[in-house]
């Protein structure tokens, strides 16, 4: 039985439950998954600002918290915290190991996901109505292909304590130890499909142990404030039990597992990864004990010939600003403030895409609902994106000016401007991608 733990399911995921897993999970592997479409864009933005950055901002903290325990317990770490700068991230891990007196720790750095050289003006963006890169009309800031087990397993084969990558398919970080340990064949699509199902369930961390789930009175989760990360016990066939540490908060039930089964899945019979076309459509989910759910009968078919690439473009600057109204007639005063902003900015070029929401009325689903009810606590929230930073600054100024020039009793102005990266997706030939592995020693 191989025991896999997940110590992060997204960039800003919690640290202390990962420390608990490293110390008490009796794990063979601890996986930290931290890249999303949003955080990969942030990685490119950070690296543009400072060539020594671009990896996960919590990398050093996570390593300081778990590396010694993992080394002591024979647990190997697999992580994509390299994000947009794997080489710099590997150095950070070595530095942490040295600072903690862990001499001899080895780190395998997997590169080759940066495929900027393979993306040109004529590259077609399949998620953008098949427009080309040139038609987007913005500079490309990075292009990363989703690597899979073929890139990660060579890192495991070096015997390294830590394998660090940039963009890889999330389930591949869990599938790689399974293939490496059990010697599954690279064309055993059934096992690769079931192993990908295990990885898919695990890769979002607490989303299977009670996070992103609680709905008070209807779906209550015990001790959510101290929720634990998941553990998968996986046998040689890929059948698994999803569980957690007994004293951790949260829960593992068929309901938490089923919600995660289709998270970010389109056709359940064709979940595409670099490793396999996984088929979850006949997967079975069965409670076998308290906080123990067995998952089996995932399968798969031949892997895709093409690999997906996320192409990042300079998105200019994103700006948002807000001001609040409360008490009697707050909704009308907020609506007046919104109308004033529209009137003053609508005629100016560059403000065509301005979006204004009323928080407290319809901020999340503005285009889905009309205002449903009066509220006595309403915040006007304005947002825009522009290549011209001065235009974004003008938006912030206009919102702030409402304090003295707008409706009665507006307060609580906040505004911020951040650099922005937008992303689209392309496909490239698998054969054009050349992953590499480099080992560093503390």
């Amino acid at each position, binding site marked *: 039985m191989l025991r896999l733990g997940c110590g992060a399911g997204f960039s800003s995921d919690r640290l202390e439950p990962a420390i608990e897993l490293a110390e008490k999970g009796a794990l063979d592997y601890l996986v930290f998954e931290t890249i*999303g*479409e*949003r955080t990969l*864009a942030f990685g490119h933005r950070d690296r543009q600002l400072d060539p020594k950055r671009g990896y996960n901002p919590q990398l050093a903290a996570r390593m300081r918290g778990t590396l010694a325990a993992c080394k002591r317990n024979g647990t190997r770490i697999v992580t994509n915290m390299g994000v947009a700068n794997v080489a710099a991230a590997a150095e950070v891990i070595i530095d942490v190991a040295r600072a903690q007196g862990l001499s001899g720790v080895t780190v395998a750095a997997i590169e080759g996901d940066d495929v900027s050289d393979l993306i040109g003006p004529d590259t077609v963006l399949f*998620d953008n109505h098949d427009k080309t890169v040139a038609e987007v009309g913005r500079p490309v800031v990075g292009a990363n292909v989703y690597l899979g087990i073929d890139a990660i397993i060579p890192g495991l084969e070096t015997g390294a304590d830590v394998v660090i990558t940039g963009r890889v398919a999330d389930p591949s970080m869990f599938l790689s130890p399974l293939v490496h340990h059990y010697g599954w064949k690279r064309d055993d699509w059934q096992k690769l499909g079931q192993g990908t199902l295990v990885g898919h369930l695990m890769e979002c961390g607490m989303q299977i142990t009670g996070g*992103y*789930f609680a*709905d008070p009175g*209807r*779906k209550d989760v015990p001790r959510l404030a101290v929720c634990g990360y998941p553990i998968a016990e996986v046998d040689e066939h890929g059948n698994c039990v999803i569980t957690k540490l007994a004293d951790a908060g949260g829960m593992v039930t068929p*309901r938490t597992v*089923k*919600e*995660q*089964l*289709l*998270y*970010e*899945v*389109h*056709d*359940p*019979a064709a979940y595409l990864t670099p490793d396999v076309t996984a088929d979850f*459509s*006949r*997967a*079975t*989910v069965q409670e076998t004990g308290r906080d123990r759910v067995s998952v089996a009968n995932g399968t798969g078919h031949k892997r895709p010939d093409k690999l997906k690439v996320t192409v990042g473009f300079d*998105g200019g600057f994103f700006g948002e600003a807000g001001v609040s109204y409360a008490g009697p007639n707050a909704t009308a005063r907020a609506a007046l403030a919104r109308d004033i902003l529209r009137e003053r900015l609508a005629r100016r070029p560059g403000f065509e*895409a301005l*979006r204004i*929401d009323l*928080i407290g009325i319809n*901020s*999340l*689903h*503005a*285009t*889905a609902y009309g205002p449903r009810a009066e509220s006595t606590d309403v915040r006007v*929230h304005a*947002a*825009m*994106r522009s290549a011209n930073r001065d235009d974004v600054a003008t938006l912030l100024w206009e919102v702030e000016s409402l304090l003295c020039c707008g409706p009665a009793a507006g307060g609580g102005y906040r505004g911020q401007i951040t650099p*922005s*990266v*937008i*992303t*689209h*997706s392309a496909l490239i030939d698998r054969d054009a991608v050349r992953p590499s592995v480099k080992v560093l020693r503390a």
Partner: protein
Amino acid sequence: MSRRIKLHEIAHARAGDKGNTSNVSVWVFDPGDYPLVKEQLTAERIKAAYPDLIRGAIKRYTLDHLHGLNFVMQDALEGGVNTSLGLDSHGKSWSFLVLDLDVEVPDNRAG
């Protein structure tokens, strides 16, 4: 005779995003409710309820043995997480838009 209730009373749901595509999976609490939810909660129904938010096609997949439906909604995230100007640029809350829809249940339904 029948009565109308919110889907939220008999089902739970989760939203995910890839690019400008949102998917919402819907699961009934009681397997006995699955046939009526499957019959009433069609792709067309969701498209009609939120035409301005979900601008593209909706395709529904069914997992009968687990009593779940999966709605894959194209052009549903105002460009996607890195492009949208909305506060919820992932569309995390889209699951509760679906749970806000009404379903007809028999008057004699237990519970």
